[in-house]
Every structure is written in structure tokens, then in C-alpha cells.
């Protein structure tokens, strides 16, 4: 059957498509600009975090003073080359105390987030997988913890078991595990309905194998985001408790106690409170920025659940 069609039109397609694609690129630029701005912010945050962490790890490299060494000749000195952050009422170098304070704050927060994360994740997965009674018990426990604001729960516990670094870590863990349990449980619940979990069970896999091999790896990205964001929250909580005298006890320096020490001298020596506070803020700012970046990349839907 010969084709009575008219002669083919001029060569369509490929070059027109090329023109079109370039036009499309122009409209997509604002998105590129935003991504560039975000990665710059994240780079700065990572740098700040690296600086604070290295200072905390190697305090002697950053300041030749001792945290509790008093120099009664140099009390309440303003920030100077000699004392970058100035000195407090007892002549102690505030930069050095801030570094050691950051060291303790980071250590305590890291331990608390790790413990709360481990406990919360395990309970979250168990609750989601076995449902029924296990789920109800775990979730009611979480509700109990949620029903008391962290600070007040912490105050109550510190009041009962006294203030020490170990107790502080315990308090921070007890006041924070429920957040992990709830979010991980909802992630695990949605995974539970996925076919590959049913297929694993129908292949004869034991509940443990299903949880470890199929559910856990798939909640890892949410866990990482949650932990990073949570460090900021815990650092704030620790600093608040130390500020109220319920966390790290003087003379050991914690960013919270440093801010507390300086309260009386706001008029004459503002740097005693303000500078350690800025260190605290930049630490939390860096953690939150990194956490946001990870959340956008790893699990965008997490924003709603947290």
C-alpha cells in the first residue's frame, strides 16, 4: 500500500528541542541559586562545628591557661590579646573555661543523644513490629515522659538523685528517649506495611531477622537526622540545667554555669556571660543547620513527625 502522504515537513524535533531545553534551564535557575546558598550555609556550619569540636578535644592547643587557675591580679579584664574572652571576677580566663565548658556540654549531650537514640529506636521498632500490648505499654511510657516538660522532669530527677555528670546524662536520656521512640515507631509502622516485610516473614525469617535486616536499615536515615537535630535540643537542656545549678556543679565549667556566673556583672563585665553564651549558640546553630541539611537530603517527610 503506497503511502499517499504529503512530503515530510522540514526537519522537526531535535534542534527545536535543543532550543527548548536551553529556555527551560533559565527558568530553573532560582532553584539552583537556593541550593548554592544552602550548601554555603552548611559549609560554614560544618566549619564552626569542626572548630568547636577540635577545641573541645585538644583544649591545651587553644589556650595555655587552666580552667580553674585564678589570677587575682587580672580580675574582670575586658577581652584583650592576653585574654581573648577577658577574665571573670576571680581572674579566670573565660576563653579557656568556655572551651572546657563546651567539652563537657558536648560530651554529655553526645552520650545522652546516643543513649536516648538507642533506647528510643529499639522500643520504637519493637512497638511498631509487635503492636498490641507491647505497643500500648511503650507508647504509654512515652506519653508519661511527654507529659512532663523535660526541664521539670530533669529538675525532679536531679532533686532525687543529686547532680553529677553521670546523673545528668541519665536525666537527659530519661527526658528525651520518647521523641526517638515516637518518630521511629511511626517510620517503622509505615515500613511494616511494605510488601518486603511480609515477604521476609513468608520466607520464614524470624521476627529478629526482619527487624534487624529489613526495618532497621530503612529507618537509619531518619535516625541520623533526628540525632543531629536532637543534639541541639539536648545541649540547650544541659545548659539550662547547669544555668539553674542543677546540671554541672561549679567549679567545673559548663557553658550554662559560665553564663550563670556572669549574670551579676552584666553592667560592668558583660563578656563573662555573653561570650560563652555565643559559643553555646554557635554550637547549637551548627548542629541545627547540619540537621536541616541532612533532613532535606535523607528524609524530607520527617519534618512533620518531629
Amino acid at each position: 500500500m503506497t503511502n499517499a502522504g504529503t512530503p515530510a515537513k522540514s526537519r522537526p524535533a531535535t534542534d527545536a528541542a535543543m532550543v527548548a531545553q536551553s529556555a527551560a534551564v533559565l527558568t530553573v535557575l532560582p532553584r539552583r541559586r537556593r541550593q548554592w546558598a544552602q550548601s554555603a550555609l552548611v559549609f560554614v556550619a560544618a566549619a564552626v562545628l569542626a572548630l568547636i569540636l577540635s577545641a573541645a578535644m585538644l583544649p591545651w592547643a587553644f589556650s595555655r591557661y587552666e580552667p580553674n587557675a585564678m589570677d587575682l591580679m587580672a580580675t574582670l579584664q575586658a577581652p584583650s590579646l592576653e585574654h581573648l574572652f577577658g577574665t571573670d571576677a576571680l581572674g579566670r580566663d573565660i576563653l579557656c573555661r568556655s572551651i572546657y565548658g563546651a567539652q563537657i556540654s558536648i560530651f554529655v549531650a553526645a552520650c545522652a543523644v546516643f543513649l536516648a537514640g538507642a533506647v528510643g529506636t529499639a522500643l520504637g521498632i519493637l512497638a511498631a513490629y509487635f503492636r498490641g500490648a507491647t505497643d500500648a505499654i511503650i507508647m504509654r511510657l512515652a506519653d508519661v515522659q511527654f507529659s512532663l516538660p523535660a526541664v521539670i522532669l530533669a529538675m525532679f530527677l536531679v532533686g532525687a538523685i543529686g547532680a553529677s555528670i553521670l546523673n545528668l546524662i541519665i536525666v537527659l536520656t530519661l527526658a528525651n528517649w520518647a521523641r526517638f521512640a515516637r518518630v521511629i515507631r511511626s517510620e517503622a509502622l509505615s515500613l511494616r506495611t511494605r510488601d518486603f516485610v511480609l515477604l521476609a516473614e513468608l520466607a520464614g525469617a524470624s521476627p529478629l531477622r526482619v527487624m534487624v535486616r529489613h526495618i532497621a536499615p530503612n529507618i537509619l536515615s531518619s535516625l541520623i537526622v533526628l540525632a543531629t537535630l536532637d543534639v541541639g535540643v539536648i545541649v540547650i537542656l544541659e545548659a539550662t540545667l547547669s544555668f539553674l545549678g542543677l546540671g554541672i556543679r561549679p567549679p567545673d565549667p559548663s557553658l550554662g554555669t559560665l553564663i550563670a556566673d556572669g549574670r551579676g556583672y552584666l553592667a560592668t563585665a558583660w563578656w563573662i556571660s555573653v561570650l560563652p553564651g555565643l559559643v553555646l549558640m554557635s554550637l547549637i546553630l551548627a548542629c541545627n543547620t547540619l540537621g536541616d541539611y541532612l533532613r532535606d537530603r535523607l528524609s524530607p517527610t520527617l519534618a512533620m513527625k518531629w
Partner: protein
Amino acid sequence: MLPPEATAADRELLRRSMGLDQPLVVQYLRFLGDLAVGDFGLSYRFNQPAMSVVLERVGHTLVLTFTALGIAVLIGVPIGVMSAVYRDSWIDLTGKLFAIVGQSAPPFFFGVLMIAFFSVHLGWLPTGGTGGLQYLIMPAIALGWYSAAGTMRLTRASMSEVLEAEYIKMAKIKGLPQRVIIYKHALRNACLPVITFTALQLGVLLGGAVSVEAVFAWPGLGFLILKSIEDLDYTIVQAAVTLIALSFTAINLLVDLLYAWIDPRIRYD
């Protein structure tokens, strides 16, 4: 509680009068019995029923907390909505900055900063205590900004998710004006998670209030608990903590009922 020179006999007398000589179990059961009746025991410091002391102070905390919550909602929600609607615009970027900084400044430090600047340096506002409105401004802002940041982020996330929904595409297909699509269709759905979050914020605010009250010497519950712990006045601490826990559970119940009222899917099963 006893003067240092008290003799062993005095000490023994006090122990027996407080029932501390009884076995632990008995003490605990008696304690629960009192609790059921609402008797939280006498406060050592105030020599009044613990709960009445607590109830006196709770008013101040509520004023501070709800003002802060008001700030959080009035600032957080509009910015959250705008930055979701006009993504990647200047509102979105400033909103994100406002949120990141807000969540990085612990309320107590933010309070200290404000005192240093507004009270000490500029002398506009009192450094603490209670009285007229001017006493409330700084503590409420110190507490409010932190929770406004959280509210803003959640509103933005919830609004963005709703704007991608099929029924919003259907609203556009119907040719509805932009404002109707955003403020009627989208907002009504987006506000559901925001309500639950705001209620949960109350807990965070109560926690934050403790440190803010300490910074600004605001005579609220937190300040009271703090002092009571230092003076080992446990009855006050127990009464206050119980009150907070009960009120918090009541709030959660209220939110569930509110949720059912707004979301027909729950109401008309």
C-alpha cells in the same frame, strides 16, 4: 530544718513527728493516701499546705506561658504559611533564618542578652520582678521566640505538603482565585497538625518558663520549684510537678477533642 546545735533527742522527736521512723512502705502508702485526698503535705518553708502555695504561683506562670504561646502562634504561623506559599522568596529565606536562630538561642541565654542590652545598656526595661506590662515583655519574648521558631517550621512543612495535594490541584482546575485556594482549601487542612504541635508546645514552654523565670525573677511555678529543690522542700516540688502533669494531660485531651471537631473524617465515621 533543725538549728545546728539541736541534740540527738530533738532530732529523734522530729523524725517521729514526721513519721520518718515508720518502714518505707508504710510511709509511701500514707503518702498516696494523702495524695488521693489532695493533701500534698505541709511545705516546710511556707508552713502552708503545699498545693495552696503552688496554686498561688501558677497564675504567673500561666500568664507568661500563654503570652509566649501567643507570640509563637501570631509570629510562627503567618511566616510559616507565607514561606510555604512563596517558596524561595525573601520571606522564605528570612523565615528560615528566624527559625534557625530562634531554635539555637536557649531562652535563658536570650533573656540574659536582652537584659544586658535593653535593661543595662539602654535602661528601657526593668531587669526582673513583676508589675506592669513592661515586666512581661522580655520574659515573654525570650520564651516566645524559641517556640515561634518551632511553630513556623512545622507550619511551613505542613503547608508545603498540603499545597502538593491533589485536591489543591482540583481547586486550581476549578479556576478558584489564588487566595481562596491558599486560605480556604490549603490552610484548613494544614492547620490540623499545627494545632497538635501548638498544644505540645505548651509543655516545652512550661519547661522553658522555669529558666526564664529564674533569669527574670518572675514569681512563677518554675521559680518556686527551683527554690524548693535548693531548700529540699519536697512537698512543694511534688505538688507542682503533679499539677503540671495533670494540666498537661488535660491539654492533650482538649486537643484530641478539638481535632475531632475540625476534621470531619474523625467525627463522621
